């Protein structure tokens, strides 16, 4: 199907949306006419009122012509003067793909690359182009793989996809909005997040409330019927435009393979899901580790640390690359499953180009460190940027863990507070244990139904793991409060606690192992015949009141 034909179909489908809306309006008017002709009394007015209510979202949907302008998202624009090598590569790939190079390059903090065009006249005339390039991609991909990614994006332009997509996208957005309106009204409330997005919060909420106030005669159900009609049309629309969308993805992959080589393109397709997963993990477990302690990694490391993580977990990642995610195909996703894309690329004849011999794409930047730092300023919120900076990753870990421990509120803390009616402290708990009242405290733990139904020893066995975890946290917090704990930072393993007296390297000597001693002491304190002596001996002496 040529570009013109596709444009035509997109136009027809979009017009179909207006036709559907007009037919529905006509039907509503018809109902009113019938009512006024044959009906009488208050019923007529009620019916008229309901039809007007139903017509409002339809009309609004038809009038909302403007496709919402995609926000650029946080990032930094880089000029050709500042990044000559990156621009040279971008221009070279564009030339190879046979299309115009972008007018702007914007570096972002996401694992994504995209080229957008703001077409004029409904996509009939080309407009300015922008390349969005996620820095995590630059960190994780080689230069050849970056060429493949760019080749894929340009492949969309050579197929004329992006210009036409304006129409397709408009249709999708518009139908979606109408359906959403109906659902909102049926629910009698305006979705809070959407209200926030649209800045006209007060107005919308007021309107939503009004709709709810009169929504007494089952018009909620009527809204849902209307939404269902539009949903049906939306499904037809998506099905019709999807085969095209997926075909476009495959075609763009082939362009990428032509420019960067078959093997490099296949490797890139395998790499991107891995980078995406790892980056999510990196953000959760490393970059934002100190947020609760109001601490950030050293300057430039918020994004820069990702490279260290990738290097340290190379083996783990290699396994992820070989097993492709076999996601179930989503009938309405415009991208075909990645496994299918890799299969198609790998089925191409060999082109004799090696998958990789180039360095990391980040090296294309003039001064990667400066760029990473600038990106932090652009992407992080002002509030977060005001946080302190740790001097290094291990320091960040220590500070965050200390803050986490001092703020920890385990189930045992809560049970203890509930039982004693005082702030829960380790000292108070140990006194209760010595007094033989641990199980009275344990009865105030949140228990599963099975545990609550159990009696005697069985109940205690159910409670013991919870008690043990919580007590361990309380003891660690006590150590931490006296600055006796340190944590072992690692890019490849979860952080491990280092207890006071523990040698830096595991010695394998069981007798003096503080970890084993702590475990034994915890067991003794929680035994049926509790003995807190060992635990008390481990704890630092309480500071004497002056």
């Amino acid at each position, binding site marked *: 199907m040529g570009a013109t034909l596709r444009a035509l179909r997109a136009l027809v489908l979009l017009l179909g949306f207006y036709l559907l809306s007009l037919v529905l309006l006509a039907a509503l008017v018809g109902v009113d006419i019938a009512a006024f002709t044959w009906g009488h009394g208050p019923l007529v007015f009620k019916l008229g009122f309901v039809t007007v209510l139903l017509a409002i979202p339809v009309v609004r949907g038809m009038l909302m012509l403007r496709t919402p302008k995609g926000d650029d998202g946080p990032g930094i624009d880089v000029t050709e003067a500042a990044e000559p090598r990156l621009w040279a590569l971008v221009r070279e790939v564009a030339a190879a793909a046979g299309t115009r190079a972008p007018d702007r390059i914007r570096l972002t903090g996401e694992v994504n690359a995209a080229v957008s065009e703001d077409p004029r006249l409904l996509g009939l005339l080309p407009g300015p182009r922008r390349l969005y390039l996620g820095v995590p991609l630059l960190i994780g991909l080689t230069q050849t793989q970056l060429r493949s990614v760019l080749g894929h994006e340009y492949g969309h332009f050579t197929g004329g996809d992006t210009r036409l997509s304006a129409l397709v996208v408009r249709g999708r957005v518009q139908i979606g909005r109408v359906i959403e309106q109906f659902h909102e009204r049926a629910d009698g409330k305006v979705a809070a997040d959407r209200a926030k997005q649209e800045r006209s919060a007060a107005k919308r909420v007021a309107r939503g409330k009004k709709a709810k106030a009169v929504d007494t005669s089952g018009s909620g159900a009527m809204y849902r019927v209307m939404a269902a009609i539009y949903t049906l049309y939306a499904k037809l629309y998506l099905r019709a435009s999807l085969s095209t969308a997926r075909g476009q993805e495959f075609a763009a992959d082939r362009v990428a393979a032509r420019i960067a080589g078959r093997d490099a393109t296949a490797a890139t397709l395998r790499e991107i899901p891995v980078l995406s997963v790892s980056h999510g993990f990196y953000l959760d477990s490393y970059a934002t580790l100190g947020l609760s302690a109001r601490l950030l990694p050293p300057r430039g490391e918020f994004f820069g640390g990702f490279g260290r993580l990738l290097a340290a977990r190379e083996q783990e990642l290699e396994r992820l690359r070989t097993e492709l995610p076999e996601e179930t195909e989503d009938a309405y996703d415009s991208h075909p499953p990645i496994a299918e894309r890799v299969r198609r690329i790998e089925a191409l004849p060999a082109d004799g180009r090696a998958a990789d011999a180039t360095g990391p794409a980040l090296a294309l930047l003039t001064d990667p460190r400066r760029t990473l730092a600038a990106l932090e300023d652009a992407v992080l919120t002002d509030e977060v940027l005001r946080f302190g900076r740790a001097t290094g990753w291990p320091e960040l870990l220590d500070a965050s863990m200390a803050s986490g421990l001092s703020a920890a509120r385990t189930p045992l803390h809560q049970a203890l507070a509930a039982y004693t009616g005082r702030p829960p402290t380790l000292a108070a708990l140990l006194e209760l244990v010595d007094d033989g009242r641990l199980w009275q405290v344990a009865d105030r733990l949140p228990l599963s139904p*099975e545990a609550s139904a*159990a009696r*005697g*020893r*069985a109940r205690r*066995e*159910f409670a013991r*793991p919870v008690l043990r975890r919580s007590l361990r946290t309380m003891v660690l917090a006590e150590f931490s409060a006296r600055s006796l704990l340190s944590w072992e930072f690692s890019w490849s393993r979860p952080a491990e606690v280092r207890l006071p007296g523990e040698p830096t390297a595991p010695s394998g000597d069981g007798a003096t192992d503080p970890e084993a001693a702590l475990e034994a002491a915890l067991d003794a304190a929680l035994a049926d015949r509790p003995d807190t002596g060992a635990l008390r001996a481990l704890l630092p002496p309480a500071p004497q009141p002056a």
Partner: protein
Amino acid sequence: MTVLLWILGILALPVVIAAVWLTGVFLKELFSPSPPDPDETAVAAEQRGLLPPERQDTEHSAPVPAAWSAALEAARGGDWQPAAALLHANGRDWERRSSIVSLLGTFAAREDGWLTAWQTARPGDPDAAVVRAQGTVHLAWELRGAQRAGSTTREQFDGFHRTLAAAREEIARAAELNPEDPTPYVVEVWVALGLGYPHAEMDKLWAQITTRAPHHFAAHFAALQYWCAKWRGSKRLAAEFAERAAAGAPPGSLLTALPLIAHFEHDDTTDVAVDSTPEMLALVDAGLADAAACAAADPDRPGLAQLRHLLAYYLHLQDRHDAALEQFLLVDGHVDALPWSYRGDPAEYYCRVRNETVGAVAA
């Protein structure tokens, strides 16, 4: 015309009344079926001295000897001495030792202060050690609950496995303190079930038991569970194990119950024909002879009641009602036994089958 309607109306009235009444009865039966009339068979059963469901003991399969109850009662009061004396006096009667240990262990799984006191007073007492091991295994099974794996929570499984693992050490200690005693190993079979010992390890454990007590009923009962398809074996493995055990056992050893249990555990049909095959008739006959031999030699032997319960059930299914009733009369009053104990309300189920038997005998 009006007159005609009047006549028709009067004629129709009885029909309408009948229809309304029928509909009423139908609806009433549909929504709250009237309880069956006070069952004649239940009355007949009562006349023979058989007990109603609410008076059946669902905790035991046979009456608990007075000395055992006394020891348990003392333990409840915190006094371990009678329990210690009981086990000491029992000596090398391994069958009874297993039963006593199980009885005391069940209570130890709930409260174990008395047992701890016993162990503190006599640290090397093998009797206390084996009760300790049994108590921990019972506790593990209590943590797991009796539901199938799918309805058992992660927390329950964690507690189950953790406690079973702890029990292994206690079992080893008990075995060490009394090397001749098979009881710790019998207890371990339930650990093997829960932790899923490989077959090779189970065979080793089994050898430990059979060298000490070749025809131990409770051991065979537990091991058969291990070999069942729902645990670690299969229908074939269970059937072969049961057949071997029954074939090698002298009369009165009660092991003729095993083939019946193996059949019961893997019978998922509702068809009673499979329970009346010539093979099943022969198995039940062998069981009757076994029970008679046991009753002559040692009428209170643990396991005899379990065999009689099975015999009563299968005799009933085989329409041998007189023989079935004979067994029912011998075991009535204690129903914690197969095939009843898998039901939510074992006493109810037991009494229903028993009363049917009574009715069939009377007819």
